[in-house]
């Protein structure tokens, strides 16, 4: 029979899951109801959009996984000063706003970018980065680094006993990868592939900016066009449903993904240097990754060095304050909801219940942010709430929802691992839920908590979709301030703001997991 503590953990998680699912349906229904009557009946060529975006997303996924594995492997084999900072850089890439990545990419590889400026004296030039190539490249910057950041701890956390065994057998570098590393990486790959495919499949600003023309489209773009240009809310809902339906297939493997490996390693167990040639290869991979994936982000930071003028603007500081508060609120909300779902999943014994608990959270991976924003707007309006002022809260809730899938996949394996090891003991000792949390969970998942907070913060920091309907004179975030500056010839201001946002993201990703790991350990 279910223990009392299992029930106590299942109920909040179940409520969050039910709430998340109900909210999603409500938002779609609100839009559909408002659409009644104003239906143009016009639908874009869905088959073509699906074809184009599947190819783009497929290529993005394959290359992101290959490069992600290579980068994680190289980081695992090498020790050098600044390694931790570089790893923090990796994790931050995922949450960088797409437009910022696109501009960074162009600063480096564009017609008048760094590389072509270097090559010009020799009469050489790199081909343009627009079209399918540019889209896939930008996605790889985001997703290969994300994959690497996620796979690296699996390699760093390999048990010392296995390494010792491997070393005593004198495994060659290739056999070492195949027999030790690969089994640790492989379980994460299907879920990772599903998430990367979803992210690329629903990509919006990158596809529009680097796409080269209308031939490259995603459903997300079509939804945006349906809302903005045609004001055809019926079509928007239908397209959103198509996107959700297709994504549902991918969500099944995605729910199985653990963002952090179950055995919470974090330090490398046993130094086992590779032969010189292989170490050089690892070094080469990292240099290439820095050049192709890191440099565009560095270009964003370098491009923003003229931030003197921005720092003097009151509106910039207001936007910063709003972004910080909204970010912290969204991070905390994502953490609380994520903990509820994850601890329910750790208590749920059968896999179907586990899936039912987390699926509503994962659906938000595929929810177009235009639809989310529109639904909230209509809901607030129907409730008679002032849409200008409720925006603050919507930003927090939406930011938390968009980060929720990542929160669940970070916390679930950690809590499930703890449950497996200590669950029966805690139950037989009759510990209350509070005691379970204070004595067992909190001291052991500090790092994961920091990671979830960082993700929640950065997702809301980079949001441009939700703020589009709720922004006002009184409510402006850093990303909307960046957009506003771009819309008025003030490209230097925009560059400065995006540089500051990127620096903030990296700082948060490097600092929070460490801070929370310390905090949680200090209590025991």
């Amino acid at each position: 029979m279910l223990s009392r503590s299992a029930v106590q953990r299942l109920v909040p998680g179940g409520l969050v899951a039910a709430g998340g699912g109900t909210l999603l349906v409500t938002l779609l229904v609100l839009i559909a109801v408002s659409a009644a009557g104003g239906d143009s009946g016009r639908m874009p060529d869905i088959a073509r959009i699906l074809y184009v975006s599947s190819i783009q997303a497929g290529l993005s996924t394959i290359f992101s996984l290959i490069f992600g594995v290579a980068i994680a492997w190289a980081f695992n084999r090498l020790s050098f000063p600044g390694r931790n900072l570089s790893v923090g850089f990796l994790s931050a890439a995922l949450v960088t706003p797409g437009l910022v990545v696109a501009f960074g990419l162009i600063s480096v590889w564009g017609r008048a970018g760094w590389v072509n400026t270097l090559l010009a004296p020799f009469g050489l030039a790199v081909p343009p980065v627009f079209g399918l190539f540019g889209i896939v490249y930008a996605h790889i910057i985001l997703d290969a680094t994300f994959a690497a950041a996620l796979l690296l701890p699996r390699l760093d956390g390999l048990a010392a006993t296995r390494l010792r065994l491997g070393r005593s057998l004198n495994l060659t570098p290739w056999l070492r990868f195949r027999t030790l590393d690969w089994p640790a990486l492989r379980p994460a790959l299907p879920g990772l592939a599903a998430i990367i495919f979803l992210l690329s499949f629903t990509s919006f600003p990158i596809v529009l900016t680097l796409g080269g023309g209308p031939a490259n489209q995603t459903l997300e773009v079509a939804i945006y066009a349906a809302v903005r240009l045609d004001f055809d809310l019926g079509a928007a809902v239908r397209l959103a449903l198509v996107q959700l339906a297709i994504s549902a297939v991918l969500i099944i493997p995605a729910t199985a993904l653990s963002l952090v490996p179950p055995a919470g390693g974090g330090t490398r167990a046993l130094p086992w240097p590779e032969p010189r040639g292989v170490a050089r290869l690892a070094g080469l991979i990292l240099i290439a990754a820095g050049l192709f994936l890191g440099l565009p982000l560095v270009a964003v930071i370098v491009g923003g060095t003229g931030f003197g003028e921005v720092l003097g603007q009151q509106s910039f500081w207001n936007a910063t304050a709003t972004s910080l508060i909204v970010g912290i609120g969204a991070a905390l909300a994502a953490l609380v909801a994520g903990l509820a779902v994850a601890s329910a999943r750790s208590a749920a014994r059968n896999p179907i219940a586990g899936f039912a608990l987390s699926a509503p959270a994962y659906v938000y991976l595929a929810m177009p942010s235009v639809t989310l924003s529109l639904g909230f707007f209509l809901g607030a309006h129907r409730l008679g709430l002032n849409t200008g002022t409720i925006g603050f809260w919507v930003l927090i809730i939406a930011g938390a929802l968009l980060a929720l899938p990542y929160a669940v996949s970070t916390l679930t394996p950690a809590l499930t691992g703890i449950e497996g090891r200590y669950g029966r003991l805690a139950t037989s000792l009759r510990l209350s839920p509070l005691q379970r949390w204070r004595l067992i969970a909190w001291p052991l998942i500090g790092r994961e908590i920091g990671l979830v907070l960082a993700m929640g913060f950065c997702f809301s920091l980079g949001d441009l979709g939700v703020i589009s309907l709720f922004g006002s004179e009184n409510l402006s975030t850093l990303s909307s301030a960046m957009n506003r500056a771009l819309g008025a010839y003030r490209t230097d201001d925009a560059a400065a703001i995006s540089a500051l946002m990127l620096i903030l993201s990296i700082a948060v990703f490097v600092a929070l997991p460490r801070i929370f790991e310390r905090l949680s350990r200090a209590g025991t």
Partner: protein
Amino acid sequence: MLELDGLRFAHPGQDRQYAFSLSVAPGEILGISGASGAGKSTLLDLIAGFVTPLSGSLTLDGQSLVGLAPEQRPVAILFQADNLFDHLSIDRNLSLARPHGRLPQDERDSSLEAVGLAGLGRRRASTLSGGQKQRAALARCLLLDRPVLLLDEPFSALDVDTADAMRELVRKLVSARNWHTLLVSHQESDLAMSDRRLHLEAERLQTG
């Protein structure tokens, strides 16, 4: 008296059905042997309440335990490993015997003394040796003082001398506190300490 009468269980989706009938007197140690996978752990899970039986009865002194959630059962367990929270001190691990109240320092100290760990209360559990950890866990069983003690291969991770000392200690405490004790193991050296022995085969308990 702890009694199991025709207690049946099957893992979801599996055909094999276990059926257990046995009784243990106060202060008695009943040894259960059997090959790996024969169902030894399942038997303990049923008594502890981690799994629910299909039918049959489970009583302590005539009171049925079947409807009780795990945390309501009068059962203390000693696992093969992970009996302590590694990241907490021994004192805090012992305090967990009274999750809803305070455990006086002298009670804690005397229980540690009883298992031969006097003075180690402030140490973090992860710094103890395997034998010390099991002793500390036994100290907590003393503090819990529940009528049923389940021993799930608690000595198999220890070296020979440590295991001997530990077995002696358990024997002494069981007699002193009159615990109804089930010992599950596949090692002859462990089973030798029990008062009576049953063997698990083909999902049934056999005498011998």
